[in-house]
């Protein structure tokens, strides 16, 4: 069998390493499974590169992957800032890539590059659902805390935008730096404002801190977050206070996916030290999507691009993948809630079924 090289790029060091390593493990799992499959026409080799979640480093490794003729396709980027900085590079070198975790809409919608695909949804989905769901729950007043990266700013933008028509009101918005430790000043203000919900547009560390410190200051508002906090790290970090936190994520729970259980089992069996994290399943699906394309047309960048462009009704771990005309997968976001130390799909949860009520007001 010939060997086909596929690049995986994500943050393996620095603050977002947990997600990056989870994604890498998942993609690696897909490759291992495929290589163990006697029916596969090729042997696959995953070239793992670290973008450090830094755009300039991202461009370097993207160039490295894209200019290496032996690399046929890429599973790329978790960080939006890096994802958006590298699209030109992939287009220039005509390397087909599938984004596995960055959720900034502009990565697919901001250009017309045939090479750029994305299996995960964008923050538009998450924001829309968040506004709809929370107002349906009867929430009227909100406070937004978001970090000042593309991620947080974007989440804030879409959430506020979609909230307007629903009649919900944002009483205050606090942009904060992603590595800020202390939120007591902001939260004391929030305590004064008495909102129904605190909406957090940021990643796990931010979510953990806001959640724990809300407790500390005796704030009884609910907390909702976005996919950035939907990690086991959030629950581990915020411990008891995480209970009842709501999050929106553009994927369904593993248990809802047809092959979700199989993935969990295989992942556990493969002996990775780290969790797959929220976006692991997307990396896994992206890897399979690419390998299937290679199986179909061989290791040829142009042909693979074409195959990927036409993806419709592809059965993947994360459900059916359909690319729209911007090669963006159409996914629905889902609501999750922390129940007894686990992220539970809202409809399945005691909160969703009405057995329990969210604590606080």
């Amino acid at each position, binding site marked *: 069998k010939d060997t086909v090289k596929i690049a995986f790029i994500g943050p393996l060091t620095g603050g977002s390493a947990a997600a990056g390593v989870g994604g890498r493990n998942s993609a690696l799992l897909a490759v291992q499974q495929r290589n163990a499959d006697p029916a596969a026409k090729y042997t696959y080799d995953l070239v793992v590169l670290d973008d450090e979640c830094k*755009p300039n480093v991202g461009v370097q490794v993207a160039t490295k992957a894209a200019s290496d003729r032996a690399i046929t396709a890429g599973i790329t980027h978790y960080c939006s800032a890096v994802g958006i900085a590298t699209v*030109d590079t992939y287009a220039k070198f005509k390397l087909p890539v599938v984004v596995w975790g960055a959720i900034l809409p502009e990565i697919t919608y901001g250009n017309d590059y045939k090479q750029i695909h994305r299996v995960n949804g964008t923050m538009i989905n998450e924001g829309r659902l968040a506004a709809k769901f929370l107002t349906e729950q009867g929430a009227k007043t909100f406070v937004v805390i978001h970090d000042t*990266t593309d991620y947080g700013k974007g989440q804030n933008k879409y959430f506020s935008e979609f909230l307007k028509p629903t009649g919900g009101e944002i009483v205050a918005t606090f942009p904060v730096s992603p590595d800020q430790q202390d939120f007591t000043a902001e939260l004391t203000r929030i305590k004064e404002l008495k909102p129904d919900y605190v909406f957090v547009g940021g990643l796990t560390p931010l979510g953990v801190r806001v959640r724990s410190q809300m407790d500390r200051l005796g704030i009884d508002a609910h907390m909702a977050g976005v996919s950035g906090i939907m990690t086991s790290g959030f629950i581990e970090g915020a411990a008891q206070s995480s209970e009842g936190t709501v999050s929106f994520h553009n994927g369904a729970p593993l248990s809802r996916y047809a092959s979700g259980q199989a993935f969990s089992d295989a992942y556990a069996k493969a002996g990775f030290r780290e969790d797959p994290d929220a976006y692991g399943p997307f990396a896994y699906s992206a890897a399979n999507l690419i390998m299937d394309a290679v199986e179909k047309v061989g290791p040829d960048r142009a042909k693979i691009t074409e195959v990927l462009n036409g993806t419709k009704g592809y059965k993947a771990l994360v459900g059916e993948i359909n690319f729209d005309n911007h090669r963006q997968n159409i996914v629905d976001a889902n609501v999750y809630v922390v129940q007894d130390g686990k992220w539970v799909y809202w409809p399945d949860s005691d909160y969703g079924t009405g057995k329990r009520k969210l604590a606080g007001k």
Partner: protein
Amino acid sequence: MRSTNLDAAIATGAPPQARSLPGTAAAILVPLAAFGALAGLLQVHEQWETGLLVLAFLAALVLLDRSRAGRSLAEACRTQSGIASTSAVLAALALLWTFREDHYSLLMVATVALYAVAGVGLNIQMAFGGIANFAAAAFFSIGAYTAAVLAGHTGLPHLLVLAAGGVVSALIGVVMLLPVLRTRGHYVALVTIAFGVLLRTLLEVNDTFGGPQGMKIPGFAPFGSDFGDVATIAGFDVSFYLPYALAAAALFALAFLAGRMLERSWVGIAMDAVRTDEIAASAFGLSPARWKATAFLTGNVLIGVAGALYGMMNGFVNPNGAGFGESLIMLSIIVLGGLGNFWGAIVAGAVIIILPEKLQSIQEYRLLIFAVVVIAILRFRPGGILPRPLRTLGRQQGGAS
């Protein structure tokens, strides 16, 4: 021009040493070997190969320092710096030509060269002017943002855009001058750290310059044609990064020459004097403020120009690049290279920028390994890889003077 023995004795304070054939050979070979090693580093893929190269490099450093032969090699390069520089230039060109089709390697080389240009600027500020600039990346980014605004939104010729990057970076530096000139040491360090954090946060929070996403920058098109579109030179297929790498190398050569000329002149002595002893310098009629400001602003010009070209090469700029961490990387380069030694910036740039990339295969452990390597180098060469030599002046300048 041959000097008489007596002159030579005056000049070097050492017994006169004729320009010997082995010495000349050494001055030619050492830069060749260094660039050969760089080519090797760019070429290798396997982790053990990288490891071997690093070990060889460390061993070479030790030999250069501790063995008689090593010391005479170093001495030869120093006394015949003209020959050594010429050899280095040719070796660099050969290296670029060898890698002419290799996008990635050229990108790395160009990056190293541009960081080294900034390194020359930073050296002028720190090693000459004595101003610890912990915001180099901020000024580098200011250059890039300037390029984004001017090249993206005006028709200004791109060579002028480069210059503007330097000028704007220096102008913004003026804002910091007052506190910088009033104080020194750790206090200056703090002023620059604060400025870097401030600028980065401001760029990110405020959306005027694109907020966290930053801005796109058109490719460098100095004479009307975009470097990004270059695909062949003289009939050879080349990467579009080749012209960038050449431009970056040329910029480094210019910065190097300018820096050298400043160092070996009254200006260099004045800066050294003001840095080492402000009181003595001012008693002899030098104005410390003037020279600190000169060093700081000149340095900023170089950093800004380098940043502008870097921005155009990468095609974008965003606030991340202005952060404290990035500034520390630039600082690391000049400290590791040897404060005040311009060649050091190239060598250390290769270590700091290329080495982590080459360690990709050990993935999440690479930062750890990298940190260990840097510590190892500094632990055994406290002055950096290539410490700054004593100033040579006038008749004493050997080689191609």
